[in-house]
């Protein structure tokens, strides 16, 4: 019964005679509710008090302690701090602390874990720096045409890079810089990391500069369209 028959009786508002339910006319029918139920409906019955006793208290203490200790455990992954509104000078030093937590913080037995989950600890790479200007340069050009606000940021970065080229053995600075680079290149870099990690690790980043994933090509195309529309 119900739903299916409804299509036929178009003249009537309902598919059945409401008088058979004991209503005289439609107005007597209860109105359908249009608002969601209240968030905290009034309680008709008070809930019974919780059980108390030594066992309950001990369980509670156990729970609280366990919860507290999990926060401190290496399994609790703290998210990398969100992007700052502005770059501060002090960030450089605060980041150092975080970079130490880049690894897992605990060592799984890799015999029982999938190998692909292994995170390689980053080591400073001298060679890579020489490649970078060309990469970020193209980026800069492309973005610059779009009048992107990132232009200034990129420039800043370039200057920073130049500075750091001079510095010799500050590992952590390198890591930080790498991070920045990653931010700038986003997806692209991640993809490469996924598959080319091995190569980067061994310093054969020759492929990096050589490899063109075609993203720039599309970008350039877009720009061409913007510059002079093709009819």
């Amino acid at each position, binding site marked *: *019964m119900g739903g299916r028959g409804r299509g036929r009786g178009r003249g009537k508002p309902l598919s*059945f005679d409401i008088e*058979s*339910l004991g209503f005289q006319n439609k107005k007597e029918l209860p109105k359908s509710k249009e608002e969601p139920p209240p968030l905290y409906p009034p309680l*008709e*019955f008070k*809930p*019974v008090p*919780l*059980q108390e006793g030594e*066992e*309950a*208290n*001990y*369980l*509670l*203490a*156990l*729970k*609280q*302690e*366990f*919860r*507290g*200790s*999990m926060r*401190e*455990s*290496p*399994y*609790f*992954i*703290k*998210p*990398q701090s969100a992007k700052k509104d502005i770059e501060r000078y002090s960030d450089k030093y605060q980041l150092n602390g975080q970079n130490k937590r*880049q690894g*897992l*913080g*605990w*060592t*799984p*037995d890799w*015999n*029982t*874990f*999938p*190998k*692909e*989950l*292994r*995170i390689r600890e980053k080591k400073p790479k001298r060679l890579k720096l020489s490649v970078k200007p060309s990469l970020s340069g193209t980026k800069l050009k492309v973005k610059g045409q779009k009048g992107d606000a990132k232009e200034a940021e990129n420039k800043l970065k370039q200057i920073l890079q130049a500075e750091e080229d001079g510095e010799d053995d500050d590992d952590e600075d390198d890591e930080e810089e790498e991070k920045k680079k990653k931010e700038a290149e986003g997806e692209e870099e*991640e993809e490469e*990391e*996924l598959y080319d990690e091995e190569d980067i690790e061994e310093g054969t980043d020759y492929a990096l500069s050589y490899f063109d994933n075609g993203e720039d090509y599309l970008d350039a195309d877009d720009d061409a369209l913007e510059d002079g529309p093709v009819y």
Partner: protein
Amino acid sequence: MAQSQVRLGGLLLQHQYGEIVENVGTFLASKGSFALRDITDGTKLGVNEVKKALCVLIQHNMMDFEKNRRGLIEYTVHINKVLLITRYPRYIYCAKTLYGDVGEFLVEELLSHGQMLMSQVCRRVSDRITQALEEGQSMDEFQVRKTFVELVKTHFLQRVASPPSDSGDNADSETELQVMEKEMFLIPPAMDIDYSKVHSSVTSSSKRKREDGEEGDKVAKRPRSTSPLSDEKNEDAPDKGVYWHVNFTRFHQFFRDQSVLSAVNSKIDRYACEIVRTMLRISEKTTVPLAPTTHPMSSHEIFQNLPPELDLNRQTLGEYLTLLAEDKTEIVNKAGESGGGMYVLNMQKALETLCKASIESVVQERFGSKCSRIFRLLLMKRHLEQKQVEDMAMIPAKEAKELLYKLFSENFVTMQEIPKTPDHAPSRTFYLFGINMHQVSRMLLDRCYKAMGNLISRREHENTENRRLVEKSQRVDAIAASLQSSGADTTQMSEVEEMITPPERQQLNKLKHDISKLEQSELQLDETIFLLESYLPGSAAMVMY
């Protein structure tokens, strides 16, 4: 149901392992199995973060991974195992009651680390106990190992099935795919020493001392070594590669038996409870764990296995058994007359009775005693027409109708239409009201998950609301502690303590009270969840894994 499970699982993961694990966990729980690449795309997280999260989930046995046809590894999260996080304190407490502090620490370590080597966990536990002991005393690691072996023998701990290795160079990887069932509880030979030789007189006294010391500050944080696992070299461990984790199913079975026993105890008396306990112990040897009914056992067998201190003679035992068998809970059934009467324990029936009772009390507390009367009536008579309900419940017709419809609209009561004529005309149709226990339990279980989620998010809300205050009080406490250690006088101390104003202190106390109340509710709600889960067929609690 799945939706509320995923929500609750997400909240639990967030509190236990952080936001990133939560993101990955909820993504996989709601979408299915995926490869690493798809997870990073789907969650918009960095590769390394996802990798870390996956490692954590695998480490805590909440995740499986498998090579798919294209050679990619696909990850699947088991939301049921994630939801067990709410029950962790209960497992720990259970281990404490059964195996003392050592058992407690062992289970606690295993739960917080997911899976560990036997040598690892034993060392850590003995270190922790040694720290807790007074100066000059130490806990023997062999004692810990002995308890560990006992826990394994009673199947409370089990080996982690080693997953398929993805290196592919293993020629005999097929055989290594899983630890065979009989090996599940096998102590590796390197660790298998005759523990009975180790005499326990020394440690038992020191253990008692420890407990004395602990009585006072049970709530206070116990010392815990925070050194991460990476500090320990597991390469040279003698039992390399054999990881252990908590066998939740065994704990669930224990909880189930315990609740049935306490039900019998409160329904009949202590003797009946002991008889059922004996029957359970006998059935441990003959019946596979978690079977709905046990093998039949004769009253003679039961009599021989009764604990001697109970002092029951054979005739009284017979009377008790008849009483139990005739009880309408049907926990004990008579299976035959041979051997002085054969008896069977029906655990499924027992669970159903318990579940029914707790649903009845839910109805009573939510809708009042009149509704509860209608509900019980329907349970008893199975199907009733509205008119019959009004008459048999002895409630005025108008009120009974209202209450019945209320139960119906809240999904506690179902309705079956039986038309007299094929046109389904309302006037010529029987409307039979009844109760579908499975449906009601499932609905309640879903509500419980929701409620649990609400409790957790409320707790989190309270915490964030008062974060500033909590941080301040922590700072003040730290200052006070450092002052005390440097030997400051009382005026200085009181000065520091006055940094928190009376209204602030009041608010702190209120916060503390609220939070412990919320957490207490979480724990007790979990008991209901456990009962409902174990009653429902094919549900998580009672599945062997």
